[in-house]
């Protein structure tokens, strides 16, 4: 089993090694995709093998895989596979169009693999100090992806991303420090005072004042990575400027990794402080994020569509935080299910946005029209992806948002879930308005003086397939999750909620 855990981390590094050895875009991309496939298989295997067993432990607590880790590993590995396959087509097309040099493409694959591996590793460690180290390292690896294009805009976004996230994660380290201190009365060995399962087992004996400060700092710090308002300011820029498959990784994998760290702290705080304080903290940050995300989605027509998707990520991360704040089995179940659904849906949307951006040579939604007539497959994917991410049935997000709202109504006051429903409705209108403007209407013609999107930017059938396959696969998964939750997934989520 331990080998499986290592294999899971090592998988995406295949692309890194290939690119570092000088492979061109296509072989490096395929190496990364195969590696990501291996990771996903290992993750599924790990989930099944660990289903009714005690958590996997090793290396003095540095390795720790319980059902919560398994669930997040599954999510991140699935997203990595989608994005890795999407990278093959996107990067070769960009290189052939002359927008990226061979060196930049190689740089991309080196850091893409590193980024994925570091995130997977951070989900497998039980040591909260190492968790910080790995999350900060993944920030740095992804900053290189954000700034890849080297234009002033992308460098600016990368700078903003790296400085804000680094500051945030450093604050989380200070939080970890106070948690460490709160355990100093327990006479554990120094190493164990940072190990999550041991802290969790002794959570009721932790010094509350220090624990409260530690939890708050951790939520603010890791919340920066999650994109919780008001620490979200790096997020829209980074998502808009990164190459699209990298945006998919940021939105669908990185944000979830940050949320995972918050959940680990939440579990300890729930026991050590009683439920009230952590719940209020998460509800406040969660609702603020939903409001901010929705407000910016409403703001204007014709905005950069990747920016729109990014604000939708802020909104959805807020929803997950709210669900954690509602608490109870229902709330936690909804939060985790929503994490998985949102991850897949956002990966689909960002990969589609990459396809559109390559075809139309613009990222402004005003510059795209009549997509369904010009490129039916991409248009349909955007439309379906939009409805999926906005939570309409029969897609998975409908089910998870319903669960979360029900969890809210099970609580004391109906005001909060009603407020959430209202905000979701506004988000629906704002998002669908922009997306439908892109999908419908008269397709652009040559006389408009813009790219019409009809010409395929991909050479070769296999490359074209890499643009379509991950999107189709993601939509299929979302559809299945909306209709039926597999028994194994259900068990894993139930076991994970028991952790909290």
């Amino acid at each position, binding site marked *: 089993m331990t080998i499986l855990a290592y294999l899971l981390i090592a998988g995406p590094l295949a692309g890194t090694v290939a690119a570092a050895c000088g492979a061109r875009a296509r072989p490096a991309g395929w190496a990364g995709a195969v590696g990501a496939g291996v990771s996903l298989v290992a993750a599924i295997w790990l989930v099944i093998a660990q289903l009714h067993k005690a958590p996997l432990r090793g290396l*003095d607590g*540095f390795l720790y895989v319980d059902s919560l880790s398994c669930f997040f590993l599954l999510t991140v590995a699935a997203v990595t596979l989608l994005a890795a396959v999407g990278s093959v087509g996107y990067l070769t097309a960009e290189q052939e169009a002359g927008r990226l040099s061979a060196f930049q493409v190689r740089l991309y694959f080196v850091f893409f693999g590193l980024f994925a591996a570091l995130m997977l590793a951070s989900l497998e460690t039980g*040591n909260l*100090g*190492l968790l*910080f*180290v*790995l999350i*900060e*390292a993944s920030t*740095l690896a992804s*900053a*290189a992806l954000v*700034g890849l294009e*080297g234009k*002033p*805009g992308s*460098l*600016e*976004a*990368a*700078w*903003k991303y*790296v*400085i804000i996230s*680094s*500051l945030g994660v*450093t*604050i989380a*380290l*200070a939080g970890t*420090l*106070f948690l*460490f*201190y709160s355990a*100093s009365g327990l006479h554990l060995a*120094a*190493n164990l005072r*940072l190990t999550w399962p041991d802290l969790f087992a002794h959570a009721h004996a932790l*010094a509350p*004042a*220090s624990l409260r*400060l530690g939890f708050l700092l951790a939520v603010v710090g890791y919340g920066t990575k999650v994109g919780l308002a008001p620490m979200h300011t790096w997020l*829209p*820029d980074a998502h*808009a*400027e990164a190459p699209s498959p990298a945006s998919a990784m940021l939105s669908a994998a990185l944000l979830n990794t940050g949320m995972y760290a918050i959940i680990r702290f939440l579990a300890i705080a729930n026991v050590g402080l009683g439920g009230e304080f952590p719940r209020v903290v998460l509800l406040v940050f969660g609702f603020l994020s939903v409001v901010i995300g929705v407000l*910016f989605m409403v*703001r*204007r027509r014709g*905005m950069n569509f990747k*920016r729109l998707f990014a604000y939708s990520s802020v909104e959805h991360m807020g929803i997950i935080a709210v669900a954690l704040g509602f608490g109870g089995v229902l709330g936690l179940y909804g939060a985790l299910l929503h994490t998985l659904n949102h991850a897949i849906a956002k990966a689909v949307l960002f990969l589609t946005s990459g396809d559109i951006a390559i075809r139309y040579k613009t990222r402004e939604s005003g510059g795209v029209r009549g997509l369904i007539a010009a490129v039916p497959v991409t248009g349909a994917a955007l439309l379906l992806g939009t409805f999926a991410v906005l939570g309409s049935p029969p897609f998975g997000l409908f089910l998870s948002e319903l669960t979360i709202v029900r969890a809210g109504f099970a609580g004391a006051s109906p005001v909060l879930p009603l407020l959430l429903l209202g905000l979701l409705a506004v988000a629906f209108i704002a998002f669908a308005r922009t997306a439908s403007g892109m999908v419908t209407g008269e397709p652009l013609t040559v006389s408009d003086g813009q790219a019409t999107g009809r010409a395929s930017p991909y050479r070769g059938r296999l490359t074209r397939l890499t643009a379509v396959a991950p999107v189709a696969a993601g939509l299929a998964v979302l559809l299945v999750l909306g209709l039926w939750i597999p028994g194994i997934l259900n068990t894993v989520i139930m076991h994970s909620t028991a952790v909290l």
Partner: protein
Amino acid sequence: MQHLSATSAPGVLLDLSGVVILLLAFACLGSKLFNRYVAYYGAQSVVLSFAAGVAAYAFHSPELWALAVLTLAIKGIGIPVAARRLLIRRLDLKRDAALSTGLSTSLIAGGGLTAFAYLVTRPQLLPHGLVAAAVVPLSTAVILLGALAMVVRRHTVAQLIGWLIVENGVFLGAITLVATFPFIVEAGIFLDIVAGVMIMLVFVSGLTRQLASASAAELKELQG
């Protein structure tokens, strides 16, 4: 031996180092020259490595000795030299004009933050009589001052230095709070800082080349 009392000789030395580190953070906040930012940061790191050495002596911990040496080599010498060579000299940076408030205002705000740090950390968190009780408020104050410097200064190089000061503040807390983190974790934190500084150096010089002067105030193409 896990706790140091505040009255023991190493305790006093640690306390004193903490105070000097805080003063250097104030000095950095009150300065306008890029040369000085780097010089104060370097000096702060040297004092920090001295503090780590004192803690290593008191706790008899070879790992802390290694950290003291690493701190001196990387933060005290490596990063300041690199910043001077690669940023300040090559980009010809002299006076920092991109301040959003006057120096006196930011110093007063810094004083307020220091008082706030004492208010939050001192009374409830830590048992009296331990050196940690004296140093943790200092380290919290250094963290807040670094963050303040990042907010007040809009030049990318100044923000980078601000982040490094925050990092020093966290580190000061880490070495005095009881024993220490496991060595792998500390080493990993170091590795992250080094990699972070390198990546930031690349971005700063790239941005500067393209924007003539890399003031984050001019970075406003991306809004909303």
